[in-house]
Structures are given as C-alpha cells and as structure tokens.
C-alpha cells in the first residue's frame, strides 16, 4: 500500500470535515431530543429527507433559491415536530417504544416520498452546485462550506441558549427530573413541545444541506442512521456542541480511511469508534 500524497490527504481531510459537519447538524436535533426529551427519534432522518425533497421540488420546479426554501421549511417542520411530540406525550410513550413508533413514522414518510418522487435518484441543480474556490492546493466547494457554517452557527446558538437563557435552564432541569422541575414552576409540556419543534426544524435545515450536496433517494434515509447515532453517542446526549465535534472526528477519520485504504472500509471506522466508546467510556457503574 502506498501512502497518498499530502495534498490528497489534506483534500480528504477537508471533505471529511464537511461531511462531519453534516453528521453533526443531523445529530444536533437527534441528540437534543434524546437527551432532553428522552425520545429517540428515528424519524429525524426521515424528516431531513422530506425537507430535502421539498427543497428539491421548490428549487427545481418553482425556481426558488434553495436557501430561501428555509423560510417555508423551518416553520412547517417546527409544526410537524410539535404535533409528533404532542402525540407521543399524550400516550406517555417510553424511550424504547418511541424508537419503535418513530420507526413506523419513518416508514410512512419514506413511502410518502416514494409516492411523490419515486425511488429514482434526484439531484438538485442549483447555482451553488458548481461553485467552488481554491485555497492553495485545495478545492473548497461552496455548498459544503455553507453546510459547515450552518452546522457550526446553529450548534453554537443552541449551546448559548441552553447555557444562558431561562428556557435552556428549564429544559435541562426538566430533563434531569421532570416532576421536580414542574414543582418549581417549569411548564414542562410547553417546553417539550418547543424543543421538539426546534429539533424537527433542525432536521429541516439539515435536509436543505443534504439536497445541496447529495443525490437523493428514499432508501438513503437509513444510510445515515448508524453514523449519526455514532456521532450523538460519542458527543454526549443532550449536548449541543458534542455531536458536531464527534461528527467531525468521525467524518475526518472516515475520509482518511477511504484515502489510505479503500472507500468500502469507511463504515468500519465510525462503528468501531462507537463500539469502543460505548464499552470503554467511564460512567456510572
């Protein structure tokens, strides 16, 4: 095995950084709802893909700028998240059962996508798709760079809200011990609905990023599940910055593994990392 050139390695690391940011963006909403709502929302991925297809539709057929579609996608997905959370809270679904129920929801969304857009590949052709610029020897594609900036910006914003605002403190308190937080005047129901809405809106944003850089097909919903879960587990449940950092670590190590060995070995990197972390991480006995 010959080691690839330094430029190639650097270019790989850069693309790993970008895809890692997308892992982080997808993991942000997933981890918040898992850690703070105790809801393992498998449908998060389906929502992201639904948003990606909506963005594709508006941009391709309606000729709307992909970033302007966020004005429709963010509020409508916020509403979708609120409705789902209301249902799950109404029936007091346990974390494990939430995984099952949202898997069912995933199947419904997948079938819906397949119904409207078929199982064929779809690629958004936007003005951004071909944009890239050169930094030294490296190419920087614009859609990926924008994804990266969005992921970093949103993660920091959520982190600040969780840390410095009363809403953030109330959410963390309710996650720690719901009844006690309620006794101290936290409106747990309203906060859960708000957070679930935000998580779904984040899935919507991630979906627009997906549409910008990737070819879409309904079956790919499942392709992201494993690696994003790995990022969330690595980064810590309910953490705002953790999934981004972990996503980037996974993305870069995958990209380097692809450059050094073969692309087909890439999945083993994230999952071996996940298994190792789950088993070795010090924690409560």
């Amino acid at each position, binding site marked *: 095995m010959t080691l690839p050139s330094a430029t190639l390695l650097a270019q790989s690391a850069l693309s790993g950084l970008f895809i890692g940011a997308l892992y982080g963006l997808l993991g942000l909403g997933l981890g918040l709802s898992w850690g703070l709502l105790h809801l393992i929302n498998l449908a998060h991925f389906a929502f992201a893909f639904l948003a990606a297809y909506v963005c594709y539709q508006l941009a391709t057929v309606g000729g709307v700028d992909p970033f302007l579609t966020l004005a429709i996608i963010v509020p409508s997905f916020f509403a979708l998240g609120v409705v789902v959370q209301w249902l799950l809270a109404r029936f007091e679904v346990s974390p494990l059962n939430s995984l099952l129920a949202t898997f069912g929801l995933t199947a419904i969304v*997948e079938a819906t996508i397949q119904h409207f857009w078929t199982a064929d590949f779809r690629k958004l052709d936007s003005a951004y798709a071909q944009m890239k610029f050169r930094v030294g020897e490296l190419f920087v594609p614009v859609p990926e760079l924008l994804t990266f900036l969005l992921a970093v910006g949103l993660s920091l914003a959520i982190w600040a809200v969780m840390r410095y605002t009363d809403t953030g403190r109330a959410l963390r308190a309710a996650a720690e011990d719901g009844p006690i937080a309620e006794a101290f005047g936290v409106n747990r129901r309203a906060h859960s609905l708000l957070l679930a809405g935000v998580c779904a809106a984040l899935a919507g944003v991630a979906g627009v990023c997906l549409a910008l850089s990737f070819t879409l097909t309904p079956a790919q919903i499942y392709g992201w599940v494993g690696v994003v879960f790995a990022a969330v587990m690595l980064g810590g449940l309910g953490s705002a910055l953790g999934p981004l950092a972990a996503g980037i670590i996974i993305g870069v190590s995958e990209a380097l593994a692809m450059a050094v060995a073969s692309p087909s070995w890439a999945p083993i990197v994230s*999952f071996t990392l996940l298994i190792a972390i*789950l088993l070795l991480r010090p924690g409560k006995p």
Partner: protein
Amino acid sequence: MAGATLALLPLAGLPAFYESFLYLVFHWVVLATSWNILSGYSGYFSFGHGAFFGAGVYTTATLAGRFDVPFLWTLPAAAAIPALLGVAIGAIVFRVRRVRGELFALLTLAVTFVLATIVLNTRIDGGPGVYLSAVPVPTLAPSPSGTFYVMALALATLTVAIAYRVRKARLGTGLFAIHDDEDAAEVVGVPTYRYKLAALGLSCALAGTAGGVHALFVSYVTAPSTFNITVPLTVVLMSVLGGTRHWAGPALGALVITVLLYAFTAADQAVAGKAFVGAVLVAAVLFMPEGILRRAALRADRASAVAAPAEEPPAAGAPLARKGGAEPLLVLRGVRKSFRGVRALDGVDLEVREGEILGMLGPNGSGKSTLINVVSGHYEADDGSLRFAGSELRGLPAHRIARGGVARTYQIPRPFAHLTVLDNVALAAMFGGARLDRRAARAQAQRWLEFAGLGERAHVHPGELNLHQTKFLELARALASRPRLLLLDEVLSGLTPGEIDEAVALIRRIRDRDTTIVLVEHVMRVVTELSDRVVVLDQGRVLAVGAAAEVMRRREVINAYLGSPRA
C-alpha cells in the same frame, strides 16, 4: 393434528406459489421468535438480529457455494458460527453494567454494519455477491418449493417449542426477572450474566439456521440485501405487535405482518404497504404497547399462579449447629470502598454473631447502605476481606452470595413489577439458597406470604400494593431464599407507628427461626428495642460497637449525630 396436516401439505400438489408464501411466513416466525427469546423475555432489545441472521446466510453461502459442502451439512455450522459470534460479543458487552436498554440496542446495530463491512471487503463476499444456483436442493418433498416449506416448518416448530420451553423453565423465569430489575434479580440469586449469554446464544443459533436456509432459498446473496436494517426492525415490529411477554406473541405478529405485506405487494401497492405497516407500528405502540397477546400473557401468569395450598407452617431456616457459638457468622476486616475518590467505607472491621440482631446506626452518608451493598455483592470491595460462614465473599458475584445464604431488602422496595406477588417470592425460593423447583417454590412462597401477612394478596401485581405491603413483600422475598444472614435496609422508613409495631413483631419472628439479622434503621426506639448489639458508623468507619443503651451514651456517638460542642 394440525401439525401433521401442515407437514403433509407439499404432497397435496399445491402451486409452488403457496408453498413459497408459507415458507416466508415460517421464515419470519423463526426470526421473530428467536429474537424474542433474548430481547422480549429479558428486555435487552437487540437491533443486531440482522447480523446473526447474516452470519448464518454467509456461513451456508460460503460452505455450500465455495467448498461444495452438501447443503444440509452446512446448517449446523450456520447455527454454530452466529451462536459463537453472539456469545463472544455478549461476553464483552454484558460485562459492562452500563450497557442496558438503548445502549445495547445501538451497540448491536453497530455490530451489523461492522460485520457487513468485513464481509464486503474480504473473500467471504468481496462485493459481487455469492451465487448458490449450482447448489443442489435436497429432496425432502416432491418439489424444491415444497422442500423449503418443509424445512421452514420444521425450524419454526422447533423455534416456537424452544421459546415455550424457555418460558416455562428456570431460564425464562430468570430472564423475566432481569427484564424488570436486573440488580434485584442478581441479588435474589439469578445468574444474570450466564442467563443473558445463554439466551443470546440460543437466539443467534436459531436466527443463523434460518439464514442458512434462506441463503439457498434466494440462491443469490449480497451483503446489502443481507445486513440491512429491515431484518431487525421487522422482527421487533412483529414481536411488539404480537406481544413480547408471550411465547407465541412473535409468531402471531410474524403471521399478521407477512400476510399484510403480501396483500399489498399482490395488489401492486408495495409503497402503500410500507406506509401501512408503519402506521400499524405507530398504532400498536400507542394503543397496545404490550401487544395482542398481553391479556393471554397475564392470564397465563395468574392461572399457573394458583399454587399448592399451604399445608404446613413455614419450615425453619437452616438448622444451626452452634447457636451463639464461638465463630461469628460474618467477619469484615479492613473493608474499603471508594467512589471516584469519595471514601464510602474506610477500613471497616466488624463481626456479626450467629443468631443475633445487630442494629446499624449512623448519620446519612456514613456508609451503612454501601456496607450492605458490599456484603450482598452489588459492589465489590476495593480492599479488605469479608468472611461469611468460613468462606470469602469478596469477588463473588451477587447471585453466588445470595445462594450462599445472604439475603437483603432495599430501602426503596424493588419488586419485579411484571411478576405477581406470589412469583416475586417464588423467584427467591427458586434461585436463592433453597433452590426449589417452580412448583415447590410457589407452595413455599404462599407460606412466606402468609407469614408476612400478605396471603390474600398473592395473585396481584406489586403495583397494586401500598408501601407497607410492598415492604413486607420485600421481606417475604428475602426470607424465601432461606438466608442465614438477612440484611434489612431501612425496612421501617415511611411506615406509620402502628405498621412499625407490626414490622417489629415480624422481625422478632424471623429471628426466632434462627436467622441472623443486620438491621439498618433510623427509628431509634426500634433499634434499641430489637437489637442485641448496635454498631455506629461514621464517615465510613466503625465508631462504636456494643449494647444499645451503653453505645448511645458515648461522647463520640453523640458528637457524630449532634455535632461536637466545639464546632
């Protein structure tokens, strides 16, 4: 009768299509039922069933496709290799106490992807897939489709029979206890680690065999179509729909879902079918989270719980050769236990004499509960020795300590929520020091319940008891394992004065059956009234030992409770 009819079906000359459809039904019955043996019974939801199924697929594909091993001979290997793989993974994963629930589910999911990557990148597959079209199909029926039907029927019958046997056996009882409260199960004597491994091995072997048959059925196997998320999610769906607490639940779920999916495919509505199955899953989780057979499972619990009548008063504990004899029952020397630098026990030396009631006092955080947790094996001591009846306890798993004759209660009661009150107690009689079989254990349990004044409540679930009754249930459960040493962790807290008097009388009666008792308690009146001696702990050390009235007058004891006058 019905079985014989099913077995003879291939001779009826049905179109191959029906046999293939029934093959698929039985195929999913095997996968769902085998998943349920570990995941449904013990509550460890595995999302890695696809990995073990896939290991079976590729075992047969490799042996029959590459090395020309006759197909039927590959099946034992298709069972053995996934079972070994499962046991190896379990041996690592189950050692980490933290890995429960969702963590276990994700970990097993990750295993699926790792295995897929390995298969895809090595000579096992290498990418293009493996063809089995040249492998001769054995002749077990007039047609190949009939042969597959017969094989799947046989395997499904075997799997359901195993699931039934396990449910009725000691293993199943133990797995159900693990489902409700793994720590409490270990403390009443269930060898949790070994039971989980056994269930996982069994589950993997059956899934692997189904994989082996399926490899030949599809005759062309690829990694993406084998190791995907469909298999684990479908089996979870089937089992949850049918009911995971009933041995037949997953089989029923498999039948329903396969028929539904087929109906949609046949009507050329595969996409609508997918949405419909999704909607069924959502509805099932929301409206009947315990499955179609929930009522049947409950009824089975109660029916079998109508146990033998109580003919004789409960037998005494193990007869003691030397009452109040020379050698103490339990001797602690220099026992230490720290949690991340906090020294909960800082060199405890203590003797518990045979037949006594030793009251244990101390301010909050003085190490009383930690001491009980260390003696019962929930935590392992960092240092020191714990000799019980002449043998060392340190390093033994909790279930071995329980069998050796140590029982405990929890400060906050931890009954097994899904077992009846009677079965809660019977479990301790089955797995504790007494080691009775199920029937004898139930009969014993009934007597212990009457002893504790709960005879009338034997057939309800613990959730229906009030606090006072739940505490007495804990006591009955501890007693049913026939302990020589009983550790009572604040059994009286939260009880009314009247209930306390009742409990004191009960504890007296327990001691009169020659059981040695360590009593952790805050109610001072009770401690002085009941205890032969008291020991006072403070900051993880023994501050004083002796007769109650004398110890409570000592200056250092008063200081520990009320603060020193200088402070």
